[in-house]
């Protein structure tokens, strides 16, 4: 184990290699590690924030649901009230219409009855004349008697 200039050569080579390592190799490697560390930190922070956001959104959704439920109940209530009102109105209308129709029918009936009475009166006069003709047989002046009979029929 004799010492020789190999010591110097190795010392110099070692220093050069270490210097090269510091200048060229080390910075990009460490930069990448640092960058990844930052990315991971950012990612974790983002996840945490997202979780908080989610919780807030869930809370808000719950509140919105409550409001919507209340509103829906109100709307249903209103609709029910309106429906009842419509039914009542319809009933009233129907009743009025029915009464009106009854009145019209009554009027019609009365008219028909009057017309029938009129016709009956005329027929009675004719029948009476025919009867009288048969009874009298003899030539009674038709014209003279007709006057008489008409006045009789009018009194009926």
């Amino acid at each position: 184990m004799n010492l020789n200039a190999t010591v110097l050569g190795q010392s110099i080579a070692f220093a050069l290699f270490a210097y090269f390592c510091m200048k060229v190799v080390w910075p990009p490697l460490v930069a990448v590690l640092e960058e990844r560390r930052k990315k991971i930190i950012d990612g974790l922070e983002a996840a945490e924030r997202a979780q908080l956001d989610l919780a807030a959104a869930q809370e808000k959704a719950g509140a919105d649901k409550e409001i919507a439920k209340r509103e829906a109940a109100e709307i249903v209530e209103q609709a029910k009230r309106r429906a009842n009102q419509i039914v009542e109105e319809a009933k009233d209308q129907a009743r009025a219409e029915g009464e009106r129709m009854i009145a019209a029918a009554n009027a019609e009936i009365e008219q028909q009855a009057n017309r029938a009475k009129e016709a009956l009166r005329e027929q009675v006069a004719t029948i009476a004349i025919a009867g009288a003709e048969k009874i009298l047989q003899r030539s009674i002046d038709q014209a003279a008697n007709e006057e008489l009979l008409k006045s009789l029929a009018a009194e009926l």
Partner: protein
Amino acid sequence: MAEANGDVLYASGTEYVSHHLGFLTYGKVDGHWGFAHTPEEAAQMGFWAINVDTMLISMILGVLFMAFYYLVSRKVTSGVPGGVQNFVEMIVEFVIESVDGAFHAKNKFVAPLALTTFSWIFLMNAMDLVPVDWIPLFAQTVAGDSHLYFKAVPTTDINITLGFATAVFIMVIYYSLKVKGPLGFANDFLMHPFPKWYLAPLNLLLELPGFFAKPVSLALRLYGNMFAGEVIFLVIALLGWYQLPLHFAWAVFHILVITLQAYLFMMLTIVYLNQAHQVDH
């Protein structure tokens, strides 16, 4: 492995082991430059010689892992990482965690330095797991010299580990001077552990050996562990067919040693640099 070559190349097991522990040294011997043919020649070359084998493997591995990191760092994404990016990120995060745990000042150089230290030393240690003859045989074939010395595991060369430790030591001194100033740095030696001016010589006597022991222990710990492991691998390789289960068992255990030694070297580097940045302690 030894049997395959032993009859031809190595007269004895001792020669096999000692040959595998020799370096391919390039230097000046007998007035001309060249490779050493024997360990004695390598020793004659003195300080101005270089271990071509460990240096070459170390550089190949260094360029390999740095190119790998470089390519990955070119196309990293902060989105879902792919398999390779995931693997690199795992190592980088492991290093960042280690640095965060032991280094309390601000210095952009420490973490990349730790990454380089860990990756490089781990890979060099991992050469230990390649069967002991493969790389030397390959080198011998390429060189056309069946007696070529070639050491495959760079961290079993004290020069390599001491090279790392020296660089760390220089950084410790540099940052100590930069952060504490010359006076503050001197104060560390003179006023600790006893903060009395008249005990300064005693403090110096206590602190100075400890300070210089840092790089030496750093280098020797790694070297010693890997060298011992390598020797065991070589001895196992002498056992003929019995080496197979033994080699497997030792290699499995060595995976732990390899990782642990790389981790230790990185952690101690971080700790020493942290001490250099500590103004009060």
